[in-house]
């Protein structure tokens, strides 16, 4: 009889929990669920399926979601409502402590987005085993793609957490065929005028942008909207999702517009 009671209580305990992850061994685990792996490659495939008749399109830029989950979700719903936005770029700091749980929470909220999305890693995402998790869940830290005769280069430019300078050789090389495209957009979490860049690194980054005729260099990290439009290279820093705000970039045949959306 006692055995029966114990078994029953055990069963109730197990049923009650019904957790997302039934057992967790440590916050530092880096075991990414199979269905959550290679997200970048999956989204690039989705992007390839989009066929456009005109040169004009819009994409959204969201960044620095950290743990501001409610406003993050609010922004995702707003983007879903806008059919003109074809895809979303995430500017990094999608976690606070870069533990697997936070990556999963980010992934789960992004599942609500009904458009493809692409990410760059932020400085917070490098903490603990975050870089390891990012690699499995998303893919390469540095990569590029083409969309409608435009080139998008996504680049990991964190300095302190990676314990090394950004791979500017890769960046220069990736941008070297810029003349094959109508416009070129780079996305990296830390802006050249950000805290982690020394004066030398800042000059090097700006030099690469100018040498390769980059149209717009897009960043996060600063948690505020800063837009510097210039005839040569323009710089944009997106607002944090804490403020339920994001940017829409409207790409035209040989120009672009940045629109700030505050919910």
């Amino acid at each position: 009889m006692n055995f029966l009671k114990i078994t029953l209580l055990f069963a109730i305990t197990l049923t009650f929990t019904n957790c997302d992850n039934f057992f967790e061994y440590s916050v530092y685990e880096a075991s990414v669920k199979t269905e959550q792996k290679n997200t970048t490659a999956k989204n690039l495939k989705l992007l390839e399926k989009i066929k456009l008749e005109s040169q004009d399109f819009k994409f959204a830029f969201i960044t620095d979601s950290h743990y501001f989950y409610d406003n993050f979700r609010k922004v995702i719903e707003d983007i879903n409502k806008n059919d003109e936005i074809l895809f979303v770029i995430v500017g990094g700091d999608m976690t606070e402590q870069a533990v697997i749980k936070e990556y999963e929470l980010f992934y789960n909220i992004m599942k609500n987005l009904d458009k493809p999305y692409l990410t760059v890693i932020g400085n917070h995402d490098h903490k603990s085993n975050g870089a390891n998790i990012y690699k499995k869940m998303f893919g390469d830290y540095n990569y590029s793609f083409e969309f409608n005769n435009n080139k998008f280069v996504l680049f990991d430019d964190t300095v302190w957490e990676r314990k090394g300078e950004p791979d500017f050789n890769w960046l220069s090389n990736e941008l070297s065929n810029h003349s094959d495209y109508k416009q070129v957009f780079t996305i990296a979490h830390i802006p050249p005028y950000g805290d982690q860049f020394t004066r030398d690194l800042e000059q090097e980054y700006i030099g690469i942008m100018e040498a390769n005729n980059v149209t717009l260099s897009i960043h996060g990290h600063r948690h505020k909207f800063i837009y510097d439009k210039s005839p040569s290279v323009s710089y944009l820093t997106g607002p944090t999702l804490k403020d339920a705000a994001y940017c829409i970039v409207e790409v035209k045949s040989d120009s672009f517009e940045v629109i700030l959306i505050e919910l």
Partner: protein
Amino acid sequence: MKKIFIIIFTILFFVNSFAQEDILIKDITKAREVENQSHWYVPDYVKIQFAGNIGLISVGIGYDFFDSIWLSELLYGFVPASVSEAKQIHLITSKNTFPILTRAIGKNLTISPIVGFTATLETGNNSFLKIPDVFPGGYYITNAIHFTLFTGASFHKEFTNSTIFKGADLYFEVGTIDTYLWYAITAKEIGVNDIFSSSVGINLYI
């Protein structure tokens, strides 16, 4: 820590293998009990736990304070690289369990609802007690210490005839990390299912 645990178990197994109704050994056991009472640092129980954010497996020693009002434990937890899919994870944990009440449900068998918390230290997975000097002051807080909060049920059985263990607890818990709980409280988007996980363990009283 690990060595202490191994020594305790070696003694226990040694005692077990020679015990079988041997009066001499019973005397030794009695002597050990007297010894236990005389040294404050001799633990009241040894334990093993599965999961709970303090290791795949964690083992250690426990002390029963104020007649099972507060159970305080020191644990070493481990997650092998094959499970963590990163480096090996070594965790040192202080675990504190508070049985809320105790009810008899059978002969020498009681059940207690429990609540408690742990504090866990880990410094091998890009985690730092002191943030590296490259970061300006206040840039990050330490990522080497985490707290868990848990609740569950514990069954206690008294062994009246055993010369090895006086009794045992079998417990089941659901718990979470402090920051995850904060997310669930502050964000509607994060539910209880997102943050809680289970653990199970045994305490063996010596």
